[in-house]
C-alpha cells in the first residue's frame, strides 16, 4: 500500500515541522526544546559513546528482570493452569501482590539487593512476572478439552505427556503474548529502576540526570531513545514469534 506509506511519511514529517515551528515560537528550550537541538544532542550522545554504555546497562537491568520473570512465571503459571488445587493455593497470593505497582518495590529492592544491578532488575522483574504468569495460566487453562481428548484416544494419557505434547504447545502463543506484554511493562520499569542510583549509566538514569541539570533537550532525546528501543525490542520479538515459532497461531487468527 504505497499510498498508506506515503501518508505515514507525510504525517511524521509534518509533525516534525510543526514541532520545530512551535519550538521557535515558544522560544524557551526548557519548555520545548527544538527538534534540531534534540538531533544535535542525539548526535552528541552517540558520538561520545554514552549511548552505547547507557543502552548496555539498561538492557542488562531489563534482561535480569525479564529473564527472572520468565524463569519464575512459566512454571508457576503452568501449575496453576493445569491443577485446580495449585490454582486455589497460589492465586490468592498472586492477586494480593500483583496489583502493587512495581515502582513501589524500590524501597525494598534497595534494602534487599542494595544498590546493585540486581535491585534494578528486581523492579523490572516485578513488572514482568505477572503478565507472563497470567498468560501462561490462561493458555494452559484454556487448552480445549477436545485436544486433550483426542490426545488421550491416541495413547497420550499420562499428565506429563499431555502437558508436554498438548497443553504446552497449545499455550505457547499465549505465553509469547505474556512475554511481549511483560517486555513492555518491564521496559517502562527500567526508568523507575534507574531512578535510585544503582549506577551512573542507563537510558532511564540519563533522563533523571538531564532533568537535574535542566537540559530538556537531553531529557527528550533519551525519552525518544527509550521509545525507539522499546519499539525495536517489540518488533524483533514479534517477528521471531509470529513468523517463526508460532506460524500456526497467526494463521488461525487471520482465518477467523
Amino acid at each position: 500500500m504505497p499510498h498508506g506509506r506515503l501518508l505515514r511519511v507525510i504525517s511524521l514529517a509534518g509533525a516534525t515541522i510543526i514541532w520545530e515551528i512551535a519550538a521557535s515560537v515558544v522560544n524557551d528550550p526548557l519548555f520545548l526544546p527544538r527538534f534540531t537541538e534534540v538531533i544535535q544532542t542525539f548526535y552528541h550522545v552517540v558520538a561520545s559513546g554514552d549511548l552505547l554504555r547507557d543502552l548496555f546497562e539498561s538492557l542488562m537491568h531489563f534482561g535480569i528482570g525479564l529473564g527472572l520473570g520468565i524463569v519464575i512465571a512459566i512454571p508457576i503459571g503452568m501449575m496453576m493452569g493445569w491443577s485446580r488445587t495449585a490454582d486455589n493455593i497460589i492465586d490468592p497470593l498472586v492477586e494480593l501482590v500483583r496489583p502493587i505497582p512495581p515502582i513501589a518495590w524500590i524501597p525494598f529492592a534497595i534494602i534487599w539487593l542494595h544498590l546493585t544491578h540486581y535491585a534494578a532488575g528486581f523492579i523490572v522483574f516485578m513488572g514482568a512476572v505477572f503478565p507472563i504468569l497470567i498468560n501462561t495460566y490462561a493458555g494452559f487453562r484454556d487448552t480445549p478439552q477436545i485436544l486433550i481428548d483426542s490426545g488421550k484416544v491416541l495413547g497420550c494419557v499420562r499428565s506429563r505427556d499431555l502437558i508436554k505434547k498438548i497443553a504446552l504447545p497449545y499455550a505457547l502463543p499465549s505465553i509469547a503474548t505474556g512475554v511481549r506484554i511483560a517486555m513492555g511493562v518491564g521496559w517502562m520499569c527500567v526508568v523507575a529502576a534507574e531512578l535510585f542510583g544503582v549506577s551512573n549509566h542507563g537510558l532511564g538514569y540519563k533522563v533523571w540526570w538531564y532533568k537535574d541539570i535542566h537540559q530538556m533537550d537531553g531529557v527528550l532525546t533519551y525519552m525518544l531513545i527509550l521509545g525507539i528501543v522499546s519499539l525495536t525490542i517489540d518488533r524483533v520479538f514479534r517477528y521471531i514469534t509470529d513468523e517463526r515459532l508460532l506460524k500456526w497461531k497467526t494463521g488461525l487468527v487471520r482465518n477467523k
Partner: protein
Amino acid sequence: IKTDEREEITTLSIGYQPSTHQAAHITAMEKGWWERDLAPFGIEKVIDKQFPSGPPEMQAMLAGDLDIAYVGSAPPITAIAEGLDAKIVACVNTNGSDLVLRPEINYTTPEDLKGLTIATFRAGSIQDTVFKKWLIDNNINPITDLTIKEMGPGDAITAISSKSVDGVFLPHPSPTIIESQGTGKTVIQSGEMWPSHSCCVLVVSGTLIRERPDLVEQIIKTHINATEYNLAHPEEAARLAAEKLSMNESLLSKSLKTWDGKWCTDPRVSIPSTLEYANVQYELGYIKKPLREEDLFDTSFYEKITE
C-alpha cells in the same frame, strides 16, 4: 564463623551529594588523596556514589552499601533511629543554604512570605527543619500561612524557573544557579535564620569504628587535610567540583564567594543544632524514640587527632 566474617576490608564506598558543601570529599577524591592516604591501611580501592539527597543516601547506608557518608546532619537521625549502625565523627560545614524568591517578589520581612509557595527539601531534611523553625520563630505558621512543597534540588530549580513556585530554600550552589538564570534572587541566608546551624557531617559505619579505628582516624585526617586545602584554595575547590558535578566553574566560584557556609571539621560544632533537629523529629513522629548525643556522635577520634 566470627573469623570468617572479619575478612580484610579492601574497598571503601563513600556517599556524597552534588553540592559545594561537600567539597572536601570532592577534592580528596579527585586528587586521589583517599586512595593515597588509605593504601597503607590495606585499602586498594575507594569508590564514591552520588545521591540527590540525604534520605536515599542513608537508605543505601542502611542496606550496607556505604562505609562513609557525607550527608546533612538530619537524615542520619531517622536512619540511626531505625537501627543504622553508624556515628557522626566530623563536621563538614555549617550554614550554606539560601532563601531565593522570584525577582518580582518584594521581600522585606518574613511576613511577606505569607501566601507564597516555597520549595525545599523533604520533611526531615536540614533545610526543612531550619526553615520551619525560623518561620515559627517569626510567628508564621508553616502549614496554614504558606505552602511548602517538598522536592530535590533539580526539581526545585526547574520549579522556580517555570514559576511553579514563588521561592526555594536550598543549599549552595543551587541559589547561585538560580540567580545566574535570572529566575530568582537571594533574600536571606540560613546563617541569619539559625546562626551556625549544623549542615553536612561525616558519618562512618559502626563496623569501621569498632574494627578499624586506625582507618577511621586516617579518614578524619584526610578530611581535615582536604578541608584545609579547600579553605586555602577556594578557586581550586570550585574547579574540581565543577569538573566532577558537570557544572559551570565560574558559577561555582561565585557560589563560594557569596554563600554564608563555612567548611569545618570539628564535630562538636554540630552537636547542639543536631540534637535540636533530633528533638524536632521526635516531636513530629519521624522517629519513635528520642536520641541522645552518644547515639549520634563519636567525637573521640577527632579529639585524639587534634589534642
